[in-house]
Structure formats: structure tokens, C-alpha cells
């Protein structure tokens, strides 16, 4: 090992801040999607409209009684008013009788 005679001696502090977010539990999962109401949330980017249409087809093939509330009914979840839009979401989902949510698109 190389010795550095003029390398000094330092006691260096941790440069990061402490995390402020405690781990939270996810919502309980559904046992079955048949007959359930699924909301589509979209940030209006990256072809989400096409993906949601295909997902509806794929999910309906397996769960004939599944229902969807379109992304068109919610507006974008990403934009300069994101904080307000997200704050209003829980009440809106409850009012619409939603059971589960599909959210996109991270690309």
C-alpha cells in the first residue's frame, strides 16, 4: 500500500440529511378484480391513452365485469397544479366508488 506522508488526517462528517419519511403500509389488495371499479390516472404523456385502451381489453378478457373510470374524467396528474390535483384525488376516488387505481406513465 502506498504511503502518503503529506496526506493529512481528517475526520469527515456524513454529508446527507436524515430521511424524514417513515415507511408506510400499502393499501390492502383486492382478492379479485371481477366486478371492481378501476380508475385510470394519467399524466398525459407517453401514449398512456393507447396503453389504457389495451389494458382495458386485456383486463376485460379475464374479468368480464370489471369497470373503468377513464383518465379523461380525472385530468392530468402531472403539471404545474400537481399538488392540488393530487390532494383532491382521495375524495374524488371515494365519491366515484373506485376500488383500485392504475397510474401511468413513468417513461
Amino acid at each position: 500500500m502506498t504511503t502518503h506522508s503529506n496526506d493529512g488526517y481528517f475526520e469527515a462528517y456524513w454529508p446527507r440529511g436524515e430521511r424524514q419519511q417513515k415507511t408506510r403500509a400499502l393499501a390492502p389488495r383486492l382478492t379479485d378484480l371481477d366486478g371492481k371499479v378501476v380508475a385510470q390516472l394519467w399524466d398525459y404523456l407517453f401514449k398512456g391513452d393507447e396503453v389504457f385502451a389495451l389494458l382495458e381489453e386485456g383486463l376485460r378478457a379475464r374479468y368480464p365485469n370489471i369497470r373503468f373510470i377513464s383518465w379523461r374524467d380525472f385530468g392530468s396528474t402531472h403539471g404545474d397544479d400537481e399538488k392540488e390535483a393530487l390532494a383532491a384525488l382521495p375524495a374524488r376516488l371515494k365519491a366515484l366508488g373506485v376500488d383500485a387505481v392504475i397510474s401511468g406513465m413513468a417513461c
Partner: protein
Amino acid sequence: MLRASAVCEAAGFPTASLTCEGFFKQAAATSIGLGMPNIALALVPGHIGTKSPAQLRQDVLEVTTAAVIANLTQITQSTNALAEPAAKDIVVRGGFQAVNRYFYAHEYSDGLPIVPPTAEAIAAFMRFTDRDPNEVLGVLLPDRRAATVWTVAVNGVMAGCLPEYMPILIALVEAMADPRYGVEHSGNTPGGDTLIILNGPIIKTLGFNYTQGAMRDGFLPNTSIGRFFRLYLRNVAGFLLHKTDKATFGNTWRVVLAENDDVIKDLGWSNIGTEMGFAADDNVVTIARYTGGGSLSSVSGSTPELLLPYLADSLLRFNNWQITFTTSHGHGTLRPLAVISPIIAQTIAQAGWSKADVQQFLFEHARMPAWVFERQLRDWNIRGVWDLKDDVLNDRIPKVFYESDDPNRMVPIVWRPEDFMIAVGGDPMRNNAYVFAHNAFLGYPVGKRIGLPKDWDRLITELK
């Protein structure tokens, strides 16, 4: 998107988050900061932007659908977060090279050597503030870590700043934590970087370069404070490449741009700090994120009418896809920046033009045909279900964007003349300019007054 999912999960709704392949690592890292490290991700193979309709159909039906079902019906076990040091823990002891190896290995540094943040060095920085080291200036996403005065000093030391820069560093973190700025977007794929603009007498007090080469490294305060900002994004906000920082390309940090306040004052114009709401002689930092830009060489002409068309044209050329923020997506938050050299500003002002006159000219002349505007976003970028007419008719954007059905009608790239920001700096005797493409609400301009300690004058005198 994950923030929306986290809100839903917290309210009791199970979610599936549609995530392209390249975003899985970022999503996993971001979910820790959201307090839900096991949030459910549904894979979209590859990237959505380059798939044929047939490939997209196959991938969604064969892969994503099954993942969505699993996400909504099965809970993923949470992985235990790794234990971390406490806020004021010493994490390594040793020589300069050993400290640097440790910091690099633990992703605390940017790859260049850092100055070891020791108790003595941190204490020197704390002399230049009256704030408590434990004071929390904000909580920064995506890691949701506490931005304390202490961590400002630590990262300032590491960046090679001098202790007397501490008041500026604190103001910068206050700006970074301001919700209007949107620090949480700093890891997006366009990979923009923040430009810090500085105004006030502190420019001369601390020896910033505010003339020739104003945006080049080479002056300690300009360079090291720019580096500090990037280190703070890394260590406290938590933006790390290959994890939470998804810059497709990215670039090195920008050095601080100190405006030429002397010239601005002589012209009777306002500087950027004043436009952020502060007094003309206040020391102010203003930050905004820019996705790119470039220089305009030899902006020629003896009148504003001759000089400004080149500037207007360049603002259009450099702010191409960024016009998405002018539509309903960004709600008019695009704020392009033009930095003009003093001789250009002086020539314009000699004709009796104010900065507002320049902004009005740019608003009227930095325009493009509506069909070009729509082609950029609808056909070339990511907004397949959108057009200007729909935005205007639904009162989402100003009427100026749809005054007729003529596809050749000229539309602006911002909502208001004052959305164009104009700074004055660089070589006083060269007629060049620099245009920045703005990232809008993903780095909106925010200014903060730099608070000085009560014995600032004495402390500065002692340095001389």
C-alpha cells in the same frame, strides 16, 4: 406518476404504476422517499416512444396486463431500508485520499476530489451565519431528507467553497426547497441543470466574476458555489445517476452567473433580483432549471429593431420542445432566459427602450406558425391527444394561441411578454448573447434574499 400512486395507496386504494423498463431503478429509489418502498410497479417493456402499434399491443397484453393484475391483488414484501448514519456522525477517518475514496464509494461526491468536511472546517462556515445548525430549511424530494444548515455547511466545505460563501449557500437551499421551484423534478430525462443568478453588492465583496467569461469556471466563488448546488442535490435531495437521476445525457453543473449590476443600474433597468421582488441593492440569488441553450455570436445593429430579431429568432430555435410548457401541460410556466452582453443592453437602452419594451418585442416576434407548434408536440414529442384549439376553447391557455383556424397564424411561445427573462452579463465590449431553454415548472425561477450575519462587515474585514 409515483406521487399520484402514493397518494392513492395512503388513502386506501391499491395501485399499479405503469413503468417503462428504463425507469424501474428510479421508481424503486423514489418509492423509498415516498415512504412506500414496495409500491407496485407494472412493467412496460422497453420504451413506449419507439414501439410500433403491434409491438405495443403485444407488450401490454402479454406483459403489462399480468403485472397490473398482480399489483392489485398481491402485496409485495417490503425490503428493509439500509441503516444510515445519524445527522452529525463522522463516517470516515483517515488521509485525504482515503476520505475521498470513501466519499466516492458511498456516492457522496461527484467524482472530483472533495474537501473533507471536518469539524473545524464546518465550524468556520457556521461563523458566517446566525442560523442554528439544526434548523431545517426544508425537506427535499425524492429522498425526503432534512435540509439543515449543518448539511449546507458540510456540502459547502466539500465543494471547495470558502466559509464566507455560507449566506449564499443557505439562500440557495431555501430556494431549492421552495415548492415553486420543483426540486423533485431535478432527475427528469431531459437532464437540465440549474443556473444560479446572483445580484447585489456581495458580487464584489466576495470577488465573483461578472464580466468576461461570466459562465466559465475559473473564479472560485462562481465555480465552487455552482458545484455546491449539484452536490446538495446529490446528498440531500438524493439525485443519483442510475437511480433517481434519469438524465438521458445531462451536463456538469453551471457556474454562478453574476449579473453586471453596475451596467444595469446605469441603464435604469431592473436586475433579475429586483424582478424576483427584492430591492435593487439587496443581495439575491435566483435559481431556475434550463435544459439547454447556446450562444449567439455577433448580435449586430445600432438600434433595437436591428438587434432584437436575431435574439427573438434564437429564443424560438433553442426553446423547441419546451413549448409543451406553454400549453395546458405547463400552464404557461415557460420562462426562457436571454443573457445579453452589456454593450447590447447599452445600445438598446440608448434608444430609450426599457427592459419591458424588449420583452414586448420578443413576445411579438418570437412566434411560429400554429401548425409548426402543434407538429412539434403532437407529432414529434409526447402529446398525442392534444391541440391548441382544444386548449383555448377549454380556457386552459390564452386566446392568442387560437385566434383563427388558419394553420399559418403566428403564435407566441410564452403567455406574457414578462415571461421572457433578460439578464445582463459577460464581456462588456463584445456584442454576443446567450439563450437558455427553460424547464418551466420543473425548475421555475425562484429568488431568495441572502441574509447576512449581524457581524458580516467585521467578519469580511477580518478576511482582508
